[in-house]
């Protein structure tokens, strides 16, 4: 039987499913960072709010990048349904710790897809995902630097820490 499917879609179907799950994760991250931006904005933590507004935009860009890739390669991308985003945080430090954990889970998720690409010889998708591998390392590094700054600042007022949050990453 002629391989009609291969003529229609350039990526592996299992990889496509995993990329669709990744779309949901990136969108969830975007929504979570927006909730964090709101928390910071309400407490006049101007730089932190700006940082998370930007993070929310970036995660959405990641989501869109994967979304377009799936459709461009002949697959079907599905718009994610996101709910249960928490808006309750106890401190700015907790927010950044949550962010780091979230970024680590996204990195691990990307690694799993790359591993699947290698398993099924989907080199096109693997090549596409290399950008995300690099991006995730940078994201983790940024958050780790901020958490290091928290440690160095000791009991300094929040305003002092907020002033040192990098707005232009």
């Amino acid at each position, binding site marked *: 039987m002629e*391989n*009609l*499917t*291969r003529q*229609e*879609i350039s990526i592996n179907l299992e990889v496509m499913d995993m990329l669709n799950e990744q779309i949901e994760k990136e969108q969830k991250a975007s929504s979570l960072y927006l909730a964090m931006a709101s928390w910071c904005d309400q407490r006049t933590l101007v730089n932190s709010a700006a940082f998370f507004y930007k993070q929310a935009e970036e995660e959405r860009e990641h989501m869109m990048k994967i979304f377009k890739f799936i459709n461009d390669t002949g697959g079907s991308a*599905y718009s994610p349904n996101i709910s249960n985003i928490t808006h309750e945080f106890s401190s700015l430090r907790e927010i950044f710790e949550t962010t780091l954990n979230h970024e680590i889970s996204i990195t691990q998720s990307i690694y799993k897809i790359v591993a699947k690409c290698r398993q099924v010889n989907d080199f096109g998708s693997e090549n596409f995902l290399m950008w995300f591998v690099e991006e995730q390392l940078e994201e983790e590094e940024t958050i780790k630097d901020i958490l290091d700054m928290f440690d160095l600042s000791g009991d300094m007022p929040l305003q002092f820490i907020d002033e040192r949050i990098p707005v232009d990453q």
Partner: protein
Amino acid sequence: MLLLIMELIFSSAYYSSYQSSTERCFYIDFGHKTVKITFCQLLSLRYKAKQMSAPEYIHNLLNHNDTVLLSLCDKEHLILLDTLMVLDFINLMKGTFAMIELNAALVS
């Protein structure tokens, strides 16, 4: 005259899927009607079957709704499925894509 050859991909208890290489499309035989679909629409059916196979969906189907209205081919067709038919439809999609994958491995 174009000779249409439908090659069987997979048969479940109630339904069958076919590929037509000459027309570059697929067919699903639902028993009372046969529907012509593109690969894109087949992917959409796969997605629906995946959603239907979620435990919460099956639980809801067994305890609250006995039937499901399945729309396909950009709402061109509407098919009523009872619980057994839903389970069989899920089986059809799983089998169809497993056979497509197997065929791809054999062809390459």
